[in-house]
């Protein structure tokens, strides 16, 4: 198992009231498995993804990243684990506006002090972006931007891929293409994938669909 959530709860305090964003959630993701999380807005999808991605710590429960409990790690170590083990694909791509496509990937190499610089070009070629390497994000289409974001998530060869509504800014055809690429990467390279989505038309590309409602998981 590369990603395990064990009895995870997240409670927000709002004055005297308590709000349970996640209520005793457990989830295991196997290598090569692609899970979709759906649910109405405010149901705790984003909270769950943030906790799985070590961006947020749970109120109770354990998260095992590649067998390691993140609860015991320092903030710097957690950042390092995110860098090494997790690839994020954000809503609306969230690329850095002043970096060319090739540098969107290089910056991760720089942060991670990677020596292997050729992988970026391979990935961009693989996603059909070879002719776009010297363009800035504002010169790309929405689909291209999201493909760059996927390439960026993969540059470090992480074991876990987390996607936050990757199709939100795309039309259904482009959205499906992007999710197909994501699913293909996860299956062929044996990664564990979680995708939060509203888009029911891409659910058939996932191995499992989990519904979250009022902080509880239903399968």
């Amino acid at each position, binding site marked *: 198992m590369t990603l395990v959530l064990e009895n995870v709860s997240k409670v927000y305090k709002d004055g005297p009231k308590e709000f349970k964003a996640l209520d005793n959630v457990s989830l295991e993701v196997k290598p090569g498995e692609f899970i979709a999380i759906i649910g109405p807005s405010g149901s705790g999808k984003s909270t769950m993804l943030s906790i799985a991605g070590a961006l947020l710590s749970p109120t109770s429960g354990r998260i095992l990243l590649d067998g390691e409990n993140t609860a015991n790690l320092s903030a710097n170590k957690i950042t390092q684990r995110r860098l090494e083990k997790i690839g994020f694909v954000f809503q609306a791509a969230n690329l*850095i506006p002043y*970096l060319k496509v090739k540098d969107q990937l290089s*910056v991760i190499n720089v942060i991670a002090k990677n020596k292997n610089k050729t992988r970026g070009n391979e990935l961009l070629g693989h996603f059909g972006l070879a002719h776009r390497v010297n363009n800035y994000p504002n010169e790309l289409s929405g689909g291209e931007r999201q493909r760059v974001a996927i390439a960026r998530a993969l540059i470090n060869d992480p074991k876990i891929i987390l996607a936050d509504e990757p199709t939100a800014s795309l039309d259904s055809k482009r959205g499906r293409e992007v999710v197909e690429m994501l699913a293909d990467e996860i299956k062929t390279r044996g990664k564990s994938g979680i995708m939060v989505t509203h888009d029911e038309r891409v659910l058939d590309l996932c191995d499992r669909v989990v519904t979250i409602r009022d902080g509880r998981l239903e399968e």
Partner: protein
Amino acid sequence: MFLAIRELTHAKFRYVLIGLIMVLIASLIFIISGLTKGLSADNASAIQNLQADYVLMEPDAELEITKSFIPHKKLDDIAKIDGVEEANPLSIRMMNASVNGTQQNEDVALFVTEADGVLLPSVSEGKTIANENEVIADSSLKREGIEIGDTLQFGEESEFTIVGFTDNQRYSHTSVLFMDNGQRDNINAITIQAEEGKIDAIKSTIGDSLDIVTTEEALQGIPSYSQEQASLNMMIIFLFVIAAFVLAAFFYVITLQKRDQFGVLKALGAKTIYLVKNLIGQVVLLSVICIAVGVGLTLGIKALLPEDMPFLLETSGMIQTSLLILAVSVVGALVSLVQVVKIDPIEAIEGAGK
């Protein structure tokens, strides 16, 4: 620096604009510093370059050498005190001299001392004085067309002949003439050379009859010297503060605009220290370029200034000022650093962490 350089080159326009402001502020700081140093030298270089450590004056004169009067015989008493290595008389008189008996008049400061004393500066042209009717003049008089061999007349007094020129001897914005008129009655001040360690003993020997001040302190007695320097220095301090605030405001706004990107980078695994280094790198890079351009601009402006304009740029002073501007810029950017540190990577995922 990966991000810093790429952002600078991509967002050229906004960084060129802020850079332009920095260049102008840096140039203004350099120019006013040059003017401060120049006016200081124009007003006091004869005192600053005096071959003496301390100046003795009458207490009532309140540091104004020209208002102090000491009987000449005091000089011998002072010279005998243990620890005093050299003691020389100095009298300063502001005069108007007519040149070669013509209509041409020049304001000069007469520095009267002993021909065999240490106060007489070395000449850069001509020879030193040999008798009571010869003077050494500051080379700034050459700009008025005065040459060696010209005579100067003060009122009804006898004529003096310029036998040599010396450099950097100005007092109260006028050229200094050094002479020994042979008069041995009242003098304005006594200058001494003495080791710093022995000055307290010397002071107690002399008692209250004379004030002993360093040559540096004696500058304050030159009319308008301290007022002139204080107002210019205040301008420089204000410019430093303005530079800090302009940069602080600029980088604060830019950082606010980049919150999302910083959130994404942190979520992707960039440590805060990496982002901080990039921000500081940007500030340092921008400041260094702007200071360099500012130095160039200042040197260009200096070349255009008239020669008799009191303007003095020293390499050491320029380096000091440059480093100070750099330091002030970095301090200005600290406000933005707090922002960068505070940004939570969870902001990259919308709808979470609320």
